[in-house]
């Protein structure tokens, strides 16, 4: 029954073509429904990904440690040639100090499958021992194709699923909005650069998370919990979203007649998924603990490089790494993360709503990015996902934060020699964002808060006043533009070799904090006026 209702809604959405849209270039595509535009946009997104893949990967030609590319290749080599029980164990055949496997088992299985693929076409690239630091034309190609195929198999269908569900449940019904939304999700410059340039498989864990979010939006909570557990088992970083999932599902269960039964069902699903994925390591306690200890590399310190989060930025003033032991800084970061997550969690437990859930995802992932332990520059991808999902709500924030997310990764991408794709794909994003007559081009200053009620709170008003003040935005935009030029053309003074990185970090941090406050307050504003509507919708 539910499905039929949804189908009808899809048709309704398709049917809504306004006559006034004749002048819109999107129109020629979206007029035929959402599917054709999704087809075109996804082929284009794929083309862009292939083109980015032509560029170098992290650690190309840099022995002895190379980079993430070598790590992924090494994992394929290990998983292909060793028994599962040896994957996470240091042994004579598996030297964990050289890119030892430190992601959960699903990544290991994925590496195994990709290893089989590589072995059939280029056996040398995954040969045990001898393939260390293997680099070749065909090897690079095959590795790039493994990322592309994961993208096509996981991320693309997930985004289609999400955008369909979103357009039915929360959308405006304009087809050009849907097309724009799809392209904002698929053409996220940061994700493309990290996955297809730098070399990682974020598309899998983010795709699974997105599918889980879509499942939540369409009321399939059990499916959602399975999908989210899979995401968590692909990359432990997916835990950034855990507070939001937890609190929304908990809040929803509490609203039902039999909260305990529902909770038990969800719990069973979670435990079952974990049990399946972790099966090879559940034979003994010791095996499981070995894997777990690999997943939490506390010895690496509270932050790495120059990431724009609280610990790294404040280390300019307070030397966290010297002052405190690993043990105490771990407790600090855990408390700080949980405390900053708390408001959005409480909101979702009290008033679970779909839109609120999306904001909660954004808030909890930003809290984790800003305050959790051992955060990497690349972790900004996680907050960017819910932001892209909220693209139609948060148009200006999307543009602004994507800009600073890209900016915060500039030093990393510069090291990888990915400046040309950085510029090209950033321009592409801006162009697509401002597509003629698309939602991005239509939004202007007065419309940013169009969904908020008239009686906004003072605090909220103040934050959005600062965040969206034209003068502040103009000034920061100009600053970051100039810093781009300086960073790429000039050498830092000898006394402060990391001066530019530090300045970039400071600017990005200030924006991330500001917008975390803004999104938190926005989430709380939501409960004020959505409550009654959403209650009806939920039931």
């Amino acid at each position, binding site marked *: 029954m539910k499905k039929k209702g949804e189908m009808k809604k899809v048709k309704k959405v398709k049917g809504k073509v306004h006559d006034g849209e*004749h*002048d819109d*270039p999107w*129109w*020629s*595509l979206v*007029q*035929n429904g959402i599917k*054709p535009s999704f*087809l*075109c946009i996804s*082929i*284009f997104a*794929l*083309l*862009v990904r*292939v*083109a*980015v893949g*032509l*560029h170098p990967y992290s650690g190309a030609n840099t022995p002895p440690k190379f980079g993430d590319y070598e790590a992924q290749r090494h994992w394929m080599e290990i998983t292909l040639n060793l028994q599962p029980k040896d994957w996470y164990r240091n042994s004579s055949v598996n030297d964990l100090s050289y890119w030892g496997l430190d992601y959960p088992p699903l990544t290991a299985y994925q590496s195994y499958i990709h290893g089989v693929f590589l072995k059939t076409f280029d056996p040398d690239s995954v040969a045990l021992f001898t393939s260390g630091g293997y680099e070749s*034309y*065909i090897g690079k*190609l095959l590795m790039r*194709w493994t990322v*592309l195929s994961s993208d096509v198999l996981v991320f693309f269908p997930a985004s289609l699923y999400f955008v369909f569900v979103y357009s039915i449940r929360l959308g405006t019904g304009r087809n050009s909005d849907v097309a724009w939304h799809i392209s904002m999700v698929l053409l996220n410059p940061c994700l493309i650069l990290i996955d297809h340039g730098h070399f990682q498989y974020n598309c899998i864990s983010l795709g699974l998370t997105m599918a889980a979010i879509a499942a939540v939006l369409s009321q399939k909570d059990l499916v959602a919990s399975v999908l989210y557990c899979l995401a968590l088992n692909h990359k432990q970083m997916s835990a950034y979203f855990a507070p939001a999932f937890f609190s929304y599902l908990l809040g929803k269960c509490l609203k039902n007649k039999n909260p305990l039964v529902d909770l038990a069902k969800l719990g069973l699903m979670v435990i079952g998924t974990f049990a399946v994925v972790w099966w090879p390591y559940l034979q003994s306690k010791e095996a499981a603990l070995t894997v777990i200890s690999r997943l939490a590399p506390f010895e690496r310190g509270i932050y790495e490089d120059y990431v724009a989060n609280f610990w790294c930025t404040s280390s300019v003033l307070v030397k966290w790494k010297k002052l405190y032991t690993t043990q105490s800084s771990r407790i600090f970061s855990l408390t700080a993360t949980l405390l900053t997550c708390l408001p959005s969690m409480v909101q979702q437990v009290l008033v679970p709503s779909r839109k609120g859930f999306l904001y909660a995802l954004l808030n909890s992932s930003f809290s984790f990015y800003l305050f959790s332990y051992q955060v990497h520059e690349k972790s900004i991808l996680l907050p960017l996902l819910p932001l892209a999902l909220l693209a139609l709500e948060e148009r200006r924030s999307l543009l602004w934060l994507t800009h600073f997310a890209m900016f915060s990764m500039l030093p990393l991408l510069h090291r990888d020699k990915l400046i*040309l*794709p950085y*510029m*090209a*794909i950033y*321009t*592409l994003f801006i*162009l*697509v964002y*401002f*597509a*003629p007559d698309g939602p991005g081009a239509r939004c202007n200053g007065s419309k940013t808060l169009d969904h908020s009620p008239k009686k906004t709170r003072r605090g909220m008003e103040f934050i959005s006043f600062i965040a969206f003040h034209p003068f502040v935005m103009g000034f920061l935009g100009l600053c970051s533009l100039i810093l781009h030029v300086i960073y790429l053309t000039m050498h830092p003074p000898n006394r402060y070799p990391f001066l530019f990185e530090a300045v970039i970090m400071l600017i990005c941090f200030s924006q991330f904090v500001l917008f975390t406050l803004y999104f938190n307050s926005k989430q709380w504003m939501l409960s004020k006026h959505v409550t009654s509507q959403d209650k009806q919708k939920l039931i």
Partner: protein
Amino acid sequence: MELRESPRSPAGVKQLFWFFGIATTVKLLLIPAYHSTDLEVHRHWLAIAHSLPLSQWYYDETSEWTLDYPPFFAYFERFLSIFANLIDPRIVHLHHGLNYKADSAIYFQRISVIISDLFLLYGVHISTRNLASLKRYLVWVFVIWSPGLLIVDHLHFQYNGFLFGWLLLSISFIAQGRDLMGGFLFAVLLCFKHLFAVAAPVYFVYLLRHYCRGGLVRGFARLSVLGAVVVAVFAAAYGPFVYYGQIQQVIRRMFPFGRGLCHAYWAPNFWVFYIMLDKGIAFLLRKFGFNIPAPVASFTGGLVGDASPFAVLPQITPMTTFIMVLLALSPCLFKTWRDPRPRLIARSVAYAYTCGFLFGWHVHEKASLHISIPLALVAVESLEDAKHFFLLSVVSCYSLFPLLFEAQEYPIKVLLLLLHTILMWFCFCTLFPKNSKGSSRTSAVEQWFKLGWVAKSYLLGVVVVEIWGQFLHPYLLGDKLPFLPLMLISMYCAIGILYSWIWQLKRIIMLS
């Protein structure tokens, strides 16, 4: 209802730049991709134009890539070399620059192509500014996002986009009735790349009958003006070489007839059938016991010399091909003579290039762009044109596939063609929708965009040929008959181009 904006509305220009910007970002991303020896050819021309005096440009033999484009292109290279010298002097060094593959050289040359495409943008803008907005978008999609141009210019490496800008500009001026300007631009274009000269007879007849009309005196006066303009353009280009007494050398370099009838990879034209027929007859005769000596030069070997490559059928000379092109062109010339109409010029020019492509001497597969780019302007005029363009555009792009033979670019070319096909399909479906209100007058005839089963199965055949060449052939036959996949591609595409030729001929004769 047709929505018309004012010709120079800023919104229209902004949107045009949006389309161009999207294409530019993709072009920038493609910079590190495979490039052919044409990159080195053009780099060497930069070096020739920069390091040598004008009098030695067409004599230099430092590299095997001698300058074989007309003088304006050489001047253009001279202009580019100023900037190249600023960026990295080694790019323009005659000897040290040979086979120079540093990032600076590749980036400079790639970006120079991207920037010169601004001229294409201008040409497209001028030629579409009077169209209704939806049709305008469609033409932009076909020209600015043309996968063929992207493959040839930004992967293989050439400066075609810039030259097509001139061609479109010239066509649109003629279509607007500004004949002198159109003729002038075409003359300039000829001095950039002489391959465009195939359309010269059409231009000549058209200008003679359309521009130089209105009585004997007035006609003669106009003819003199036109002649003066053309002579002035050619004098600007070739004057210095005439002055140095080198004109023969320039001509010899520009027309290297020793290169043979077909290129290493056969362009999908009429001669493919001729060669196949020759091989078939020779095979049959040998079966029947005749002693047929194998030809000295073989087409499949790649290198083609002066010796006759045919076993049975008569030898083809440049003269034969020239006469055949003119013969094929004559109906169109006759029609233009009888009734020179501005609206038909794009069709006639495209038809001329089709004839040149089908019957010409040493035709390169890249020349199929000469057909599809001008036809993009008329593709939006009617349903039949749209159907024809759809087919032709796919075939023309697919025939360029052998240019990119490395594994790395394989997904790129496939995705480009796929995206283009799907975009075209939806664009035409929008332009000619199923429930169109305008179809009431001919309700019996189906008015919306759809392909017949012949066209559909032909396009499906493209997929089959590609799968055979890429996967089944290496799997089933291994290293045997290595030329077969390429031969199949050119045979298959030749059928499509031949169909397009007949269709265009019919269209030109029927349109009145």
